[in-house]
């Protein structure tokens, strides 16, 4: 606990602090870029990209091991990873655009083929007598233990640049994500912006390899945006929130992993993301489960109240328990089920309103078809006073005509 606290307040050594900062920047960048990708409904493209880094990583390792005798130099590995990820990304685009296969098949095919190739190359490395092989497993599930200061600096710097780049491009991305045609009439080069979006996604994935590992980096680009979406409907706020949540997850995950030797960073970062997601999923006032359930309960009670009052007005017996309870709580009936004076008044009002609604449906069939009132709101909250006046007059005239 104390070790975690020290990491939380950036007091656990230069490297840990640097890695924490890097992970926060990375999480922020991943959250931002992921929001746009989510809007574009292409979230799982990053899964293909991240798995496609493995053959590049392994090849770069082999090349560097053959030339320099040690394959662990991180910038070289990341360049290799980036190149093969770019090939994978291109393959996904080519398969989904130029053949009849859907993007899901393209993603799955690229992901598994590239990863399979990477695994083959890993076994090649195992058979080579070179040092530093253990360094590669860190790229599978992420590990920040034993990270060099230079590596941490590189990650932090790249993440900062990426975050800045995404921030600059945010308006173009947004336009392309929502309405490519509108964007192109506004002089935005849609193809180029789309490409840039994907390249930035690729860069985030590659930079994040060392921290979360290639299997889990995809989570950083998906979960924070989805979480942010729970709290707001405004796109740029989703982006900002996702950046914040991603940074928070990076912060919590990396500091937690520094508590105990051998705790993998990637899973902790992802689980931190997931906890934030779960909280939002339950508690968000707009789309959360709790809010949805409560809205449903409110709706149910309104229906029962309405139906109960109408039944009272028509002098029908009420057998439903919930209806009785709702009416009793409102003071419309007594404990023994006999209506109170206020109950009678409310019942008469409800019946009157129901007649007005019936007239409204009769005279304005199209408008009423568009309304989603179901007779549950007071009529004056839905219709304008003029309309209600017209309906009242019609109701009176109707009574006059048919006594």
């Amino acid at each position, binding site marked *: 606990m104390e070790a975690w606290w020290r990491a939380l307040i950036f007091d656990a050594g230069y490297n840990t602090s640097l890695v924490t900062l890097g992970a926060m920047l990375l999480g922020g960048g991943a959250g931002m870029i992921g929001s746009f990708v989510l809007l574009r409904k292409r979230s799982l493209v990053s899964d293909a990209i991240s798995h496609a880094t493995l053959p590049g990583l392994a090849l770069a390792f082999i090349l560097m091991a053959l030339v320099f005798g040690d394959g662990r130099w991180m910038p070289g590995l990341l360049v290799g990873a980036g190149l093969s990820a770019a090939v994978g990304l291109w393959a996904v685009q080519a398969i989904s655009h130029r*053949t*009849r296969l*859907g993007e*899901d098949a393209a993603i799955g095919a690229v992901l598994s*083929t590239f990863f399979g190739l990477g695994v083959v190359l890993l076994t090649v490395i195992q058979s080579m007598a070179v040092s530093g092989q253990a360094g590669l497993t860190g790229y599978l*599930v992420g590990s920040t233990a034993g990270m060099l200061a230079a590596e941490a600096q590189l990650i932090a710097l790249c993440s900062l640049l990426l975050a800045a780049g995404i921030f600059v491009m945010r308006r173009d991305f947004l336009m392309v994500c929502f309405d490519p045609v509108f964007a192109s009439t506004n002089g935005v080069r849609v193809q180029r912006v789309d490409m840039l979006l994907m390249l930035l996604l690729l860069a985030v994935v590659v930079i994040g390899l060392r921290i979360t590992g290639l299997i889990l980096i995809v989570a950083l680009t998906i979960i924070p945006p*989805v979480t942010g979406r729970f709290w707001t409907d405004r796109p740029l706020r989703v982006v900002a929130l996702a950046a914040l949540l991603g940074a928070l997850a990076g912060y919590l995950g990396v500091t937690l992993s520094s508590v105990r030797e051998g705790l993998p960073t990637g899973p902790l970062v992802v689980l931190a993301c997931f906890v934030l997601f779960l909280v939002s999923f339950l508690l968000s006032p707009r789309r959360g489960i709790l809010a949805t359930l409560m809205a449903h309960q409110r709706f149910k009670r309104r229906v029962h109240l309405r139906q109960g009052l109408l039944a009272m007005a028509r002098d029908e017996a009420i057998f439903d328990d919930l209806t009785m309870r709702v009416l009793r709580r409102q003071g419309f009936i007594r404990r023994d089920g006999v209506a109170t004076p206020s109950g009678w008044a409310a019942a008469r009002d409800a019946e009157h309103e129901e007649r007005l609604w019936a007239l409204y449906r009769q005279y304005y069939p199209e408008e009423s078809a568009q309304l989603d009132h179901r007779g549950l709101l007071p009529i004056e909250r839905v219709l304008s006073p003029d309309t209600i006046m017209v309906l009242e007059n019609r109701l009176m005239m109707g009574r006059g005509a048919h006594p």
Partner: protein
Amino acid sequence: MSDFLMFSLVPMTVAIVICMSCALLGNFLVLRRQSLIGDAISHVALPGIVASFLLTGTLASSAMMLGAGVSALFTVAMIELIRRLGRVENSAAMGVVFTSLFALGVLMLEWNEVGTVHLDVEHALYGNLESLIWFEGTSLAALVDPRALSDLPPQLARVAWMGALVVAFVVAFRRSLVLASFDADFAASVGARPTLVGLLLVVMVAVAAIAAFEAVGAIIVIAMFICPAAAARLMTDRLASQVALSQLIAVASAVLGYVLAGYGPGWMGLGVSLSAAGMIATLSGGFLLLACLFGPHRHRREALST
């Protein structure tokens, strides 16, 4: 020859059976644009297996299969829940669930140092096909010797059951499967129960993924769910030929992949062997690449004008 019997026959058979059954189901996944369900389910087998190990303390395969099965169903339920209640887009919901569960699995592994008992992330991902050695398979006579046959690795029987189950499912439900995959509304109108069939398909995918997972790891499963069926889809317009072609490609990937991985380096004068699972996945991707370049039906058809 005895070398082949002892070291290669069982892994190769297992690989062939797994590839064929996964590719068979894959045809429908690709048609329904649900390819990534296979991806998600094979990832979450890991947390299921680790959790069942932590609960029961054994690596007995029945417990592991149960754990993986439960986690697969849990995943599907979670995805649906998040998609419906949270109004989150399908692929994003999938991404949220399977990455989180996989992360949980990795964390449980590392936290409890289960790594020492032959269960680690690498094993989960690319399996251990080469370890399925048939020690009694010393000569051809062993093929008819009941004592030697009883020594066959248990994975073989399990995989065979899985294959039989998958084939039985597809044969029994072929009409509904085809209808539901092409036109769910029509299927519903003629009483073919598309929702039920879809759910059963997911269950079968889970069964296949879990049985295969233990023997060969997740990567081959994902590749086989998608690549052969996708390649076959680019070769023909008829479903029957597509299924047949996908089976052919699956077998070819399995056999060639296994041989290349096991003997390829030897031919080049290197005394090592490569990951068979990885090689099989790579080859199936190679077949897909060929189909993408030359498949007679690779282009998207223009919509029929009405």
